[in-house]
């Protein structure tokens, strides 16, 4: 049994729509970096929705760390919160991930919910802002930032929860070359620290020694 495993999954958004996946299987071992590739409409975003417990397969099953993730399992508030804490998801359109008035509050949103003391929240938030060199944006409104800055803030907000698994949908889209190189460095660090990384991106944006496997949809 793998750390993350989708086995023989069939999924369609509606009964009268064609299935996005039919007998599809996917796995990721703990600490692995897996790249998901595929043309537009091949189901990358759907795969990420399944892995995040936002949609559920009609057939087959989704296992995460030995636990079957189903709608019934996530209906329990505690299970859902515990699950979402362990899986961080960076949307392709980071713009819609930001709903707080200040960048600081955006990054501190997760740690505050975890009930950490305010000093720890401050520490985590500042660490995450420093990871992306965006300390100077701390008091700014996310809404008014550029696309690349928004992506950094969204990524920082995801990492502030210290998830075990990081799922990134096109993390380099909209980033300049320097920032993209910074993100690659960060991915190296995340991998070294034992985080599992699943990302949709183009291979030419990723160094060969960073990823372990490529899954083509």
């Amino acid at each position, binding site marked *: 049994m793998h750390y993350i495993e989708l086995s023989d999954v069939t999924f369609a958004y509606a009964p009268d729509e064609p299935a996005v996946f039919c007998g599809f299987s996917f796995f990721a071992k703990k600490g692995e970096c897996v790249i998901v590739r595929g043309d537009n409409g091949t189901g990358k975003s759907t795969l990420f929705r399944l892995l*995040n417990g*936002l949609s559920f397969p009609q057939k087959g099953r989704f296992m995460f760390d030995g636990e079957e993730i189903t709608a019934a399992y996530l209906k329990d*508030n*505690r299970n859902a*919160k*515990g699950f*979402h*804490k362990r*899986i961080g*998801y960076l*949307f392709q*359109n980071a713009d*819609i*991930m*930001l*709903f*707080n*008035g200040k960048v600081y509050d955006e990054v501190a*949103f*997760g740690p*505050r*919910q*975890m*009930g950490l003391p305010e000093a*720890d929240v401050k*520490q*985590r938030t500042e*660490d995450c802002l*420093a*990871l*992306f*060199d965006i300390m100077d944006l701390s008091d700014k409104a996310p*809404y008014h930032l550029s696309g690349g800055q928004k992506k950094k803030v969204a990524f920082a*907000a*995801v*990492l502030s*929860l*210290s998830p*075990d698994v990081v799922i990134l949908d096109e993390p380099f889209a909209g980033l300049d070359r320097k920032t993209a190189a*910074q*993100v690659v*460095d*960060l991915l190296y*660090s*995340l991998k070294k*620290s*034992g985080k599992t990384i699943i990302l949709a991106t183009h291979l030419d944006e990723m160094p060969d020694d960073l990823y372990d496997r490529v899954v083509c949809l």
Partner: protein
Amino acid sequence: MNELPDWMIEDDIYVPPKDGGAFIVKTLQTIAEIMTRIQVQHGHEKRFALPATVKFVALIGLLIILSLSHEPLPLLIFAAFIHAYLCTWSARDIWLILKTALFAAVVAFVLLLPAIIFSPAGLIRCLVIVIKVFFGVEMVNIFNHTTQWNHITSALRKLHIPAVFVFTLDITLKYIVLLGELIDGLLTALLLRSVGKNDGKYNTVGGVMGVTFLRSAEMNQQMYEAMRCRGFTDDY
């Protein structure tokens, strides 16, 4: 890029606290679903292939006749025609039409209940009003179900409804679905990052609503500018 901080590397044993108040997220999700549903018309344009202008004029005419009729007999004849037409539809679509009409009729009945109780002699008249509400909503639903939004706005323009009104209606209809998607995305992000107890629920909801408002204003401006670039001269 800086080194990862220790807390990010260490194993994090986290037990989520109990937290109520999921109703806010659920309510907003319902709003988003409704907004999305408004725009997604499955429609029967081919089934009733009259031009939208004719249908619109016929609808207005039928609504006027319906309002003016005071006897049950014409209403029953009316009902026979409408339901004979509806019988050619699938059960699911018939239910979609009838559901809203029934709801409106029930609301009308509840509103008229005091009049019925205090003046039983007027029962028939009250029932006629309830039936009129039912058929009125049913006809509007049928029109909505058999006519695409863009054909409705086109019909309004042909009937010389002021351009500003048509433009506003058209933009609103087009953006309802986008706003629904935007709210859906924001709520999904909120859901994924709701990992514990949120002491500032109303701030969060305010943030979601605020971002939605700002984005809607931005999208409106962007679309207007895009239309201007493609030759739109404020004349619809």
